[in-house]
């Protein structure tokens, strides 16, 4: 685990310092914005996620983001996988009952119908940020059940409480960068998940990598343990 890795580097210090420069707040501080909209930001866990799955013949991958053509093409070219795009963001934006996670649980039962233990990798992006604790627990339980032993989950978590004008969608720029594209959504307020809470939420998954990035986001790569005793 390499928590805080970015912030210890000179680049991390420079990125943090730039936030205090005129016009340096927000996106310009730690990413660049291409013409298509959305800043390009570094990713630390996508490459290891891909590298591990590349060793699996024809892996099964669940993508909780919307269908994004370039992501589909990229994952196909890199992994030759079977991909299930399951846009949970669209459901998160619906006004289902809040509080107990029941509304989301019924959505999950209808949407995430892959065989339990049959999924090699899950791209959860930052969907947990838009859920309350009950909803997040329901989602985590379902995702953990889907993963095969040794399967991987990649997730992003904001590290600061904020309400943005839009939620985000993630477009793979390359194995080391993601484009954070703003997207209209009903839920703009974001939950902050401390590292310890994330570990509890996603237990029994083991944290393989955790990176605190300069753009105030934690990237995590978690793995379902293979040892029977640790497999919950």
């Amino acid at each position, binding site marked *: 685990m390499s928590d805080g890795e970015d912030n210890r580097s000179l680049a991390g210090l420079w990125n943090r310092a730039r936030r205090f420069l005129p016009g340096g707040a927000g996106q310009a501080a730690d990413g660049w914005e291409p013409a298509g909209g959305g800043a390009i930001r570094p990713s630390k866990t996508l490459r290891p996620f891909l590298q591990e799955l590349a060793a699996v013949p024809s892996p099964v991958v669940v993508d909780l983001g919307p269908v994004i*053509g370039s992501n589909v093409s990229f994952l196909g070219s890199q992994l030759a996988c079977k991909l299930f795009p399951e846009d949970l963001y669209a459901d998160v934006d619906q006004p289902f009952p809040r509080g107990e996670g029941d509304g989301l649980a019924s959505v999950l039962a209808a949407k995430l119908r892959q065989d339990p233990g049959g999924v090699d990798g899950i791209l959860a992006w930052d969907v947990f940020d838009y859920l309350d604790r009950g909803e997040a627990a329901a989602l985590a339980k379902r995702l953990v059940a889907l993963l095969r032993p040794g399967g991987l989950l990649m997730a992003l978590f904001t590290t600061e409480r904020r309400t943005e004008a839009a939620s985000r969608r993630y477009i793979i720029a390359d194995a080391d960068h993601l484009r954070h594209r703003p997207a209209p959504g009903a839920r703009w307020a974001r939950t902050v998940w401390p590292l310890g809470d994330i570990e509890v939420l996603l237990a029994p998954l083991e944290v393989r990598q955790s990176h605190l990035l300069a753009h105030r986001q934690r990237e995590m790569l978690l793995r379902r343990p293979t040892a029977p005793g640790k497999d919950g």
Partner: protein
Amino acid sequence: MASETGSPVEARHPAAASAALIGKSVVVKGELEGSEDLTIEGQVEGKIELRDHTLTIGQGGRIKAQVFARAVVVCGELVGNINASEYVEIRETGSVDGDVVSPRVAIADGAHFRGSIDMQKKGPVQAKGGAIEAVTPWKIPPSQGA
């Protein structure tokens, strides 16, 4: 005076110059097989099999069928599974509800897709454990249709 573009159909639909066309008013129910490229602007229900050729579903096309082809380009609506040996392209006006099996799949921004995408390559599996390259998005071959 003879037209340089050939038949009136070819003049209106450039793709039709080299592909069969099912027009807007045509409704087909049953199995459809062919050994040439096909463009559908009408409605088809059942099964479409163009094993070595390209199926183009035009913007007006409404298909409820299982599709088997070398390549499939969707600009209209398709409900059903696609099995394409080379590629599937869903254009921005396209809508697919079904599972796709093809080594290469391109989905344009704005297109609708619901289902799974199986991009398992036939033949030798790609190198294992090697470096993951920077993205060079797969380029869609120039399309003659739609």
